[in-house]
């Protein structure tokens, strides 16, 4: 237990994001999820079932679970989201890959799917996760072995190395009933709406006012301790949320603030028209998600 507390303290001191994996047996793992140095959630994976519990219970769970092999894994927010996804996804297509050379073929075939999917590769002493967004978008991958942690945009070449004689590969398609998939979709949609509106605002108002908007929004995110940074061309969302509802709440607040400032310059009427024009081109599932979470501020989008 003191070793685990030392790991948590080390994350805290560095304000690091990542997870601590406590392996009790091949079938039983406890994961502590840390955001900027603090444990914000924990999950127990036991014989194929995942149980998620609030952060105030993690100490109690660790105490009651017994001896474990612990590993601290610093990750990016998206890398952490991939781990969260891997614990919550269901009904995957699993197959065994006996030839290490076939891993690249397998990943290539998954990359060609039109729907987002998560691939989980498990060797004896290492594992990897690859998130394939929509077709033609760059994947995101995380690889963890005893010595190596790779967390990067794109498909890390480390996946093609021979990590063992056998690899169990599972692929999970997007499932809207799984909360963390919804969070991922909201994250993607939020970035898309912001980027579209930034481009529109830049055309109408020019760089100086976009930069002014960036300053105002930076102050907004820092006041709320949100790790979302905005530049004049794009948004970089490094925030980690507890659930899709919490994510939607903060995205809603962010967009309301952003639109209110844009409206001061271009007027609410034109802003609403531009928003509708941009949103109209989004696919139907995205529109449903916007509706379900009332993501866009009332008065600009909803009648």
């Amino acid at each position, binding site marked *: 237990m003191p070793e685990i507390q030392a790991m948590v303290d080390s994350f805290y001191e560095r304000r690091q994001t990542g997870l601590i994996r406590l392996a009790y047996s091949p079938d039983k793992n406890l994961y502590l999820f840390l955001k900027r140095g603090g444990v914000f959630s924990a999950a127990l994976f036991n014989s194929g079932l995942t149980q998620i519990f609030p952060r105030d219970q993690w100490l109690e769970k660790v105490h009651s679970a017994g001896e474990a092999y612990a590993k601290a894994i610093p990750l990016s927010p998206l890398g952490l989201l991939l781990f969260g996804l891997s614990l919550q996804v269901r009904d995957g297509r699993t197959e065994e890959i006996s030839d290490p050379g076939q891993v690249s073929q397998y990943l290539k075939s998954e990359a060609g799917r039109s729907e987002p999917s998560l691939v989980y590769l498990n060797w004896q002493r290492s594992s990897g996760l690859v998130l394939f967004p929509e077709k033609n978008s760059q994947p995101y991958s995380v690889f963890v072995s005893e010595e190596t942690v790779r967390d990067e945009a794109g498909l890390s070449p480390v996946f093609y190395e021979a990590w063992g004689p056998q690899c169990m590969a599972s692929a999970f398609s997007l499932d809207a009933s799984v909360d963390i998939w919804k969070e991922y979709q909201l994250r993607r949609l939020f970035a898309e709406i912001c980027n579209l509106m930034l481009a529109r605002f*830049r*055309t*109408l*108002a*020019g*760089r*100086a*006012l976009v*930069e*002014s*908007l960036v*300053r*105002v929004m930076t*102050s*907004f995110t820092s006041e709320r301790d949100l790790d979302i940074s905005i530049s004049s061309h794009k948004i970089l969302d490094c925030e980690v949320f507890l659930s899709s509802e919490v994510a939607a709440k903060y995205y809603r607040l962010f967009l309301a603030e952003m639109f*209110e*400032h844009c*409206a*001061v*310059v*271009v*007027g*609410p*009427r*034109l*802003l609403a028209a531009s928003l509708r024009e941009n949103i109209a081109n989004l696919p139907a599932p995205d529109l449903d998600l916007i509706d379900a979470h009332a993501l866009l501020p009332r008065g600009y989008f909803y009648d």
Partner: protein
Amino acid sequence: MINEWNELKRTFSSPRAILSYAFALLLLAGYIVFYQFAPLGEPFDNLVLNSITSLAALAVAGVSTVVFLYYDPEDHPRKIWKNMMIGAWLWFFAEAAWQIYAFIFEEVPVPSIADFGWWLGFLFFTFALYHQYSAIMPGESETIRLYAIGAWLVVLLLPLSLLSALGTFTVESFVDFYYPFADLAVGIAGLALVFVFRGGALMRPWIGLMIFGVSDMLYAWAEKTGMYAWSAENSNALTLVIDSTYLLAYLIFGLGILGHWMLLRHGLRSK
């Protein structure tokens, strides 16, 4: 409207803005006093009155230049403001030329070099309007261009065909007829932009252009009906209203552009 009201309140609270409003009010008050009481006698009253108008036009040209310089070369609004600036300077030169003519001849010949300045100014304001509409409707640039060309053809051909049909065509009468149509076209385009940007700060620069439409149409009507007085000493209430509205249009145009520059300079503010 709450946004715009808050923004106006913010703008008004700035010392530089208060100075600008005070300067504008002073010009307007001075104009009305000279118009009503003609204290210096001819030709100096007219000289002062025309100088006030030229000064207002110079202020518009100056502040639009400052706005233009504020934008980066790759900024889309720079195209709008480049044309606004050129149009404003052409109108200032037209005002100055008109003032010189009026000082020398009392009644200004038509057409004169001043008319050429105003005509060319309209052309550049049309370019500015085209770029502004293209920014609002990026996919409709072709249609906007067609509307702009169509509006110019109407503005040029309608007076021509009307005068030809009546058998009264002269260059002078054509120029006199051209202004109300050009003003109407620019005024409508400006009004539409005010409506599009309703509640937003980008609406402000276009309000003045809209008022020019009203003012110049009143002038054209009064001039055609012989109700326009050409000197301060012969002035009447209607001429005072028309000429003051013309000055007011310049002042509102300038203040609108100044408000835009202040927004660019100070940026948006956190709540």
